[in-house]
């Protein structure tokens, strides 16, 4: 991890956050919704080395916490994504081949997003946030997983491309 990558990571996730908040949240996705932000984050983390992944998790989580419509305490997404990034970059990444195929990438993205949302609900509930009925939570997580899977051919190549563009010569 080189510190001069931090502005690029911050700018990328801030742009994604704006896209999510101003456009994607407005679309009625029929079943649940779609978090491009989470999906992109998972696809990004899978390519990153450990130190960089943990820092990216913290930055992405902090930006996600800025959402004005969020009911949960500030810092909860930072906590979840920082924790997830370490697990993904060490345990999950170590169990997979060095070269990630698009299918594996999509599957990990779907599972990772769903686990992140589920952890958010559980931690939110522990901190006193009301999250609704079980069926509502399942529908939201299932809907997000479905759209994350269906739209993976669109965002996974973009995530790979943007990630490579942010690498410094030393990282490459």
């Amino acid at each position: 991890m080189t510190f001069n990558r931090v502005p690029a990571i911050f700018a990328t996730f801030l742009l994604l956050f704006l896209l999510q908040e101003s456009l994607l949240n407005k679309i009625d996705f029929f079943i649940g919704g779609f978090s491009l932000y989470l999906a992109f984050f998972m696809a990004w983390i899978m390519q990153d080395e450990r130190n960089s992944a943990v820092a990216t998790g913290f930055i992405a989580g902090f930006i996600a916490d800025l959402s004005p419509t969020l009911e949960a305490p500030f810092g909860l997404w930072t906590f979840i994504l920082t924790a997830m990034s370490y697990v993904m970059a060490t345990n999950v990444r170590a169990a997979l081949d060095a070269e990630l195929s698009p299918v594996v990438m999509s599957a990990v993205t779907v599972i990772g997003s769903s686990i992140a949302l589920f952890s958010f609900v559980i931690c939110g509930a522990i901190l006193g946030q009301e999250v609704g009925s079980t069926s509502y939570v399942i529908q939201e997580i299932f809907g997000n997983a479905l759209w994350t899977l269906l739209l993976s051919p669109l965002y996974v190549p973009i995530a790979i491309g943007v990630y490579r563009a942010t690498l410094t010569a030393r990282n490459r």
Partner: protein
Amino acid sequence: MANRGANRTRLLWVSLLVTSLFLITLDLRGINLINSIRTGSQSFLAPIQRVGSNVLSPFSNLFTDLSNFGRTNSKIDSLKTENEELRSQLIFNKNVLGELEQLKGVLDLAGQARFKVVAARVISKGGTGTFSETLVLDAGSDAGIKRDMTVIASAGLVGVVKSTTKSSAVVLLMSDPSFRIGVRIAGTQDMGILSGEGEGKFSLRMLSATGQLKPGDVLLSRGSSGDKPFVPGVPVGKVITIDNSTGQLTKQGRVMGFVDLNALGVVSVVVDSMGRNPGDALVPKAPAPAPTVTVFVTPKPSPTE
């Protein structure tokens, strides 16, 4: 060497986790800095959301429209005959017309109750990652909107203002799991508590053991002290089923809201109820039955006969 690298990662990870827990603690303790960070981000996002809303408004219901594709085949066939320019014009007009109809409806409702309202457009919604049912409006404290004001649409209650900036406001929808409102049944005046359950579902629990409840009962807001957060008399929903399970002290039921919370374009915020209670005056009128058409056919002899 590799072990040292792993230790460094673990140290960074633990430090960042502790930092995030520190942020959570600050927020739970109500530190102003954290609140102002979110208010600041809302001020920053509002103009972008407004642009996004304008760009996306013809496509926001794309998936719902696609799901109804089979049912609207005949309509699509007839539209195919029109040229591209007319079609895009039609989409734009339909969008504007829909918003105008919603605005007219909500102003009618507010006018009937003589509430002073501020109309606002919906520019964004709460996303999947938030697990909260919220809307963002394009009007804020500059238009007189404050926290804990009632938000209504043409058919009734939408929610309550949760926070404001100068040019935007976040509304907690009545379907949010944390939403509670005191209601009374139009006519009998029996009181109950309505709770949101997410995705447009609501449950009702009567306050009194003797409170009567039947399907079709219309629920109106009971009103709060100083009319904040709820003004009285606003239509909330209709009872659809009663839960008759034994062992309950008071009656419970399922409720259907009057407002379709997924199709809101324009809403109104009640900035002043003028101290009035409209009573049961805002109860939606039942649709008039369609007149039966009787056709008499007199057989005529054919020319060959």
